[in-house]
């Protein structure tokens, strides 16, 4: 809502209140000021000039050399190429040093050898249009004396042009919250301003001069659908004389950000701006049968709206129709078939109330949000239609735009009763944490035109019809708080019962897991939860994979964000690919993100997955596995096992493992399948892991218990065995552990050798073993005996023999 400060002053005089104070205090009472500007602010050093003399330029057949009185001691000389001026005319003169809209600067100079100390301007050069100055020539100088209203006001040479032509209003743009459509009007904001600054509101009661007759002899109105149109009020004007509006009206419409058109159209816009009630004017000769029917459109009906666009209508759209056809899309825009034109003789003013949701949906469906629809969509005051149509007709008479026929048609089937509430000062204070006196509350409410009725010792509040947002004590509390001042409410720390609060064990684990990933050099990423279905192809998910059953967004922004991911891998690979494409040499990434698995009830299971991804920096399977192992150790997960995973289509079949804690699967990791990497366009090995957060959490170790440090020395023995390629290191290790008995403390692999001395198909695997007893120094006989058992077990169990 754009508000003219001058217009506002007509209802509550705030001419002594500075811009800053006005903006601050209005904002703090709930009408948030977005911007404030002064009309014509870009125009500097342009004054009114009176042409005293005009002679032809000696070197030009079209230029004039003018002597102009600009209110200085002597006239100045200005050369102009314009032809529409004559001696005695008043024109805008940009003096040397002047600035015009768009940053144009004017200096003294010579035009074809003749000195010119300024420039005479058109209204376009001042940033205005023929809508603002309908009486003046657009292609030439702005001759001020061509506008009768301007001359009546009085203009003198030397006067600042913006002041002389009234192009210096202060306009304030407000952000009005959707619960306050009453503030989408000068009156509504005036009421707020009056209450804010503690000043009286001067309301105006329209008085309509009529010419006799009766509207009912000409017009009939029926509402077919009172739910969509609770009220329709209309008056008729005859002997209409279409002409430009007077200057004062044009100025206010312009300041409010609209465009003056002609007197009848301007009156509808003026009343909308002033009262917040959108209006429409029909050329009544185009309303077949003089019969207005408010109904939803029929299948197949269409309308051309005032902007010249054709629209097909649907049965969901409310229309104003005559006996045969729609003549207006209700609350949105009028039809071209009943437009006010130069020879319109009879006008029907509509001032109606429409259902907000219906208007919004229609406007959205037709792609035309208008000044009217944006007001209607918030739900307007049903009591406002009558006052507004009266105001319009008052203006018709005042402007001499026509003769108002007696009578009002006001179809209002279900008038609602006024809403009343008890005033509960204690409840208000205990909600706000304040100690505001009941009388102060009453004063505030009265200043907002709430009614107050005494009822025994208590007070009943009558809520004004335009305050549909006030329905309960908490709403009254807000009204009181707004004008008591939100910033006058004390600041206290939340009282009440002490709560324990704190992070849960799972939340602490989540943090620890992140810290472990970072300590290993992995950066945290955040990826979108929705993906494209084609991403499943990119990770080679089989056609029949259950993971392809995703929740599908019915109205996505695009294919790329159309389904909820059931695997985090594609999101991770997107980011890996992006970093690769940015020529980042290496990346180590992790995310603790959700996947969304559809449930029978239509919602999703949303488990979390710890995803890791890495490429570059000599990453290989075992470096990556080392990171996974370190994370599992940080989580104190014991009994960790790895199994070959040759059947996950996203991973290299020979370089992929499933991880278990005991029998609980934790997830999968490995090198991304070269075909997948190729689909992403990454030409280097990429490693990824997908670990179930819930499984990690379930397997995590509790508080560790201290084990005494060894008091006795250990015996270290190395052993190298030759075995078949198919025997895994894991199997060898298991075998060693089982055979060793109680003395074995550590087994660590230190070499795998293939080559001369070892038969093809076999390999030599070397381990370092640490043996120790807790209660004595081991004898070499004991150590030898243990080693003997191990060697035998390896030979018998795995055909692995000492090298």
């Amino acid at each position, binding site marked *: 809502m754009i508000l003219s400060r001058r217009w506002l002053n007509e209802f509550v005089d705030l001419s002594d209140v500075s811009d800053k104070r006005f903006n601050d205090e209005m904002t703090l009472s709930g009408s948030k000021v977005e911007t404030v500007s002064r009309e014509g602010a870009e125009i500097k050093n342009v004054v009114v000039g009176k042409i005293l003399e005009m002679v032809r330029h000696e070197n030009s057949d079209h230029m004039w050399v003018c002597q102009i009185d600009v209110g200085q001691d002597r006239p100045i000389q200005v050369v102009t190429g314009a032809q529409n001026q004559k001696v005695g005319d008043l024109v805008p003169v940009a003096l040397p040093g002047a600035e015009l809209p768009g940053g144009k600067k004017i200096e003294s100079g010579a035009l074809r050898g003749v000195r010119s100390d300024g420039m005479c301007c058109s209204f376009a050069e001042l940033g205005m249009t023929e809508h603002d100055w309908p009486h003046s020539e657009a292609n030439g100088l702005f001759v001020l004396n061509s506008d009768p209203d301007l001359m009546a006001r009085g203009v003198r040479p030397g006067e600042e042009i913006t002041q002389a032509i009234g192009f210096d209003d202060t306009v304030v743009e407000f952000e009005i919250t959707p619960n306050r459509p009453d503030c989408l009007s000068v009156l509504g904001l005036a009421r707020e301003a009056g209450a804010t600054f503690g000043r009286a509101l001067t309301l105006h009661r329209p008085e309509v001069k009529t010419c006799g007759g009766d509207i009912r002899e000409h017009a009939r109105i029926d509402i077919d659908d009172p739910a969509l149109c609770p009220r329709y009020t209309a008056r008729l004007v005859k002997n209409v004389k279409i002409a430009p509006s007077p200057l004062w009206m044009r100025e206010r419409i312009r300041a409010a950000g609209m465009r003056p058109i002609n007197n009848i159209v301007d009156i509808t816009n003026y009343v909308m701006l002033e009262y917040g009630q959108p209006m429409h004017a029909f050329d009544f000769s185009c309303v077949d049968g003089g019969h207005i029917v408010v109904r939803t459109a029929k299948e197949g009906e269409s309308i051309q709206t005032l902007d010249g666009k054709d629209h097909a209508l649907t049965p969901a759209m409310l229309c104003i129709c005559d006996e045969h056809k729609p003549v207006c899309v209700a609350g949105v825009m009028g039809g071209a078939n009943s437009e006010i034109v130069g020879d319109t003789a009879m006008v029907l003013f509509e001032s109606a109330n429409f259902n907000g949701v219906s208007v919004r949906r229609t406007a959205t469906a037709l792609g035309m949000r208008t000044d009217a629809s944006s007001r209607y969509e918030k739900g307007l005051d049903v009591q406002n239609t009558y006052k507004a149509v009266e105001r319009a007709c008052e203006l018709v008479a005042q402007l001499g735009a026509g003769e108002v026929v007696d009578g009002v048609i006001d179809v209002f089937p279900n008038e609602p009763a006024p809403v009343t509430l008890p005033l509960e000062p204690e409840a208000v204070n205990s909600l706000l944490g304040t100690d505001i006196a009941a009388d102060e509350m009453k004063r505030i409410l009265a200043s907002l035109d709430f009614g107050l009725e005494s009822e025994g010792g208590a007070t009943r509040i009558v809520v004004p019809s335009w305050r549909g947002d006030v329905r309960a004590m908490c709403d009254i509390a807000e009204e009181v708080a707004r004008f008591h001042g939100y910033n006058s409410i004390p*600041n206290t720390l939340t009282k009440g019962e002490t709560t324990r609060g704190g992070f849960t064990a799972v939340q602490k684990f989540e943090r620890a897991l992140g810290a472990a990933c970072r300590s290993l050099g992995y950066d945290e990423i955040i990826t979108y939860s929705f993906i494209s279905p084609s991403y499943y192809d990119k990770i080679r998910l089989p056609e029949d994979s259950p993971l392809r059953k995703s929740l599908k967004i019915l109205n996505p922004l695009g294919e790329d964000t159309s389904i909820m991911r059931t695997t985090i891998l594609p999101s991770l690979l997107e980011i890996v690919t992006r970093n690769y494409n940015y020529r980042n040499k290496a990346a180590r990434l992790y995310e603790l993100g959700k996947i969304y698995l559809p449930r029978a009830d239509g919602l999703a299971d949303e488990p979390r997955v710890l995803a890791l991804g890495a490429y570059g920096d000599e990453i290989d399977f075992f470096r990556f596995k080392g990171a996974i192992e370190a994370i599992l150790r940080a989580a104190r997960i014991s009994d960790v096992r790895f199994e070959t995973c040759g059947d996950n289509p996203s991973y290299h079949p020979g370089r992929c493992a499933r991880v278990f804690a005991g029998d609980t699967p934790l997830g999968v990791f490995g090198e991304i399948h070269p075909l997948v990497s190729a689909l992403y366009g990454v030409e280097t090995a990429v490693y990824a892991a997908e670990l179930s957060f819930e499984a990690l959490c379930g397997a995590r170790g509790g508080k560790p218990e201290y084990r005494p440090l060894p008091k006795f020395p250990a015996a270290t023995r190395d052993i190298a065995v030759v075995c078949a390629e198919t025997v895994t290191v894991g199997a060898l290790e298991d075998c060693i552990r089982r055979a060793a008995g109680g003395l074995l403390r550590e087994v660590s692999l230190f070499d795998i050798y293939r080559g001369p001395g070892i038969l093809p198909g076999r390999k030599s695997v070397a381990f370092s073993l640490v043996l120790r007893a807790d209660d004595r120094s081991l004898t070499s006989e004991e150590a030898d005996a243990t080693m003997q058992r191990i060697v035998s077990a390896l030979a018998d169990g795995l055909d692995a023999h000492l090298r």
Partner: protein
Amino acid sequence: MREQLEAIRAAALSAMEGAANAEDLEALRVRYLGKKGDLTAVLKQMGKLSAEERPVVGQLANEIRAKLEAAIEKRAGELAAAALAVRLRAEAVDVTIPGEPRRLGRQHPMYQVLDEIKDIFIGMGFEVIEDREVELAEYNFTKLNVEEGHPAREWSDTFYFTEDSSILLRTQTSPMQIHAMESRPLPIRMIAPGRVYRKDEVDATHSPMFHQIEGMAIDKGITMADLKGTLNAVVKSLYGEDTVTRFRPHHFPFTEPSCEMDIQCYKCRGAGCPTCKGEGWIEVLGAGMIHPKVLEGCGIDSSVYSGWAFGFGLERLALGQYKISDLRLIFENDVRFLEQF
């Protein structure tokens, strides 16, 4: 004999002082003090001396031995110190050569901000809760007093999974208020961060997925003064003790009275500058007293209990805190971006 001893002393001391290294010094020790050394050789002739002279010469010989041993020790110390100095000089490194790279990973800047906020509330006795993102319209809208027909419910604004608009991607973290009210014992003090989704095309300030954080306290006798006091304390923890705030009336369907909180622009201190778009204030969050309809809808007696709630967007906070100019950077996850934080 006495002269012989004196001669040995003089020669040995001078040689020892001049010893160039540990080996030379050892050789001198052997030469003068060893079993076959000069001093021993002289002493072997003691038998030739008279009984009176013997103790005198013996004492002199012992004195000389002690002197020479002390001289050796002193010289050995000097030589060791010199050798150490040489070694240390040789071992010196160019300390400006970079260390071996050890790269620590970084937490995402937005989650750093989130953790900071969580810690502030945890310190005030709050809990952190999370909940589902695929949500019922009933929880995302209806129970939050957002009526049928409200613009936020339109398919142009909200992502839906069902034709009847009953299942959606939550558009705000506020449904977690409802879940908490329905499932937790009173009093409740909680914050609830999470991902939310709205149908906005990606640009420098919009993303179809973003994060909010919700806060709520419900108990007997909770007031708007409590809301203000708590939020002021939080903002001071986040932005510094000298942060100036103001509260403005605003509108949210699920709170009444409702407000927005601004902080005075930290750049211009309220004078107006490009950072605050000339307003002097920067909008930080929306809040209010939980609407009695919302409480009652969750089975909480609004004549006994009251509560406050707030919510704000995390992205904007993170962008402001780290002076990040474009929201897209947050979700791009370029490691050159991530490693800056």
